[in-house]
């Protein structure tokens, strides 16, 4: 029987001079990830943006637990979104959404 996929949830703080949409964050992540790890790496990551609050500049993303280091490295490498300087800071990592919200976003 196949084992259940283990996931990691990351809380991010988005710092940018201009408003950033959900789509911008996702595309900035994929661009950086593809540059660093290529299509083979991208096929293993299981990345998705779960929640984004543009007012607070906080986002929650999900990835496979095996790809956590790759995802964190890619997030830290993002220096611009829509060709404007921007930064994503990881403010917390957890195995469940509930724990992440309690720990990082409370």
């Amino acid at each position, binding site marked *: 029987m196949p084992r259940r996929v283990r996931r990691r949830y990351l809380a991010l703080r988005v710092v940018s001079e201009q408003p950033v949409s959900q789509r911008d964050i996702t595309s900035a992540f994929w661009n950086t990830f593809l540059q*660093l790890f290529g299509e083979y790496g991208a096929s293993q990551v299981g990345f998705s943006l779960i929640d984004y609050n543009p007012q607070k500049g906080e986002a929650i993303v999900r990835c496979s637990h095996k790809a956590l280091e790759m995802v964190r*490295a890619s997030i830290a*490498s993002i*220096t611009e979104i829509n060709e404007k*300087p*921007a*930064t994503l*800071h990881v403010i917390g990592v957890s195995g469940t959404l509930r724990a992440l919200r309690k720990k990082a976003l409370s």
Partner: protein
Amino acid sequence: MRKFVDLHLCPSIENLDQVENMVKKSSELGYHIVGISLPPDIKRDEISQLQKICRDSKTDLVTRVDFTPKTRRELLNNLRRFRRRFEVISVICTSKTIARQAAKDRRVDILSFPSTDPRGRFFDDAEAELASKALSSFEIDMTLLLSSKGFSRIRLLSCLRKEVAIAKKFRVPVVISSGATCEHLMRGPHDYASLAFLFNVTPSLALRALSEDPLAIVERNRGKLSPDYVVEGVRIIRRKNDCLDV
């Protein structure tokens, strides 16, 4: 709790607002100690101003100077003149001669290689052996990695992977610092640790390179610069008036 240190912030010293913003950001990101790269001829009151900014942000300032000498003589002169004025001395090695001299001189704390071209980086086995004997550390500025793109980043990652392996082999301490010139290039210690994964540095080693290793440099030099220091292993613990009559 771990004390994180960013030994290399490079704001423009004339622009105190920028300095303040960067120091504040460092504090928010979880750094307790920040090193600001200062010009060698900086005045004491300017340093006091920077110290006040850091105190207000609840961080500790480390005075640092970066030398980019062209000749060995220039390096030796600089070290003689400025060693006792700054807490951390870093040498930016732009040639092999300078790199070797800097690595064997005990007055140099940090060896820095700013080039992304493998021919412009001189941290090989011989350099590491000298650095290991002289207690110098090998510095990795993460701004270089963040601001490079494409082929230059590929080359840089490949160089860093080799250099980190050499540093491990010869037990040369590795110091990871930001080298940031603006706020957008600053990251938290855990973000840097995950970036270090790109050049085969384990999270535990990366966190050590962001805390214990730079802290050891700062504490060692503060001890040496204190008026109670005599020589290696000897320091004054009580002066004439404080001594008990026996």
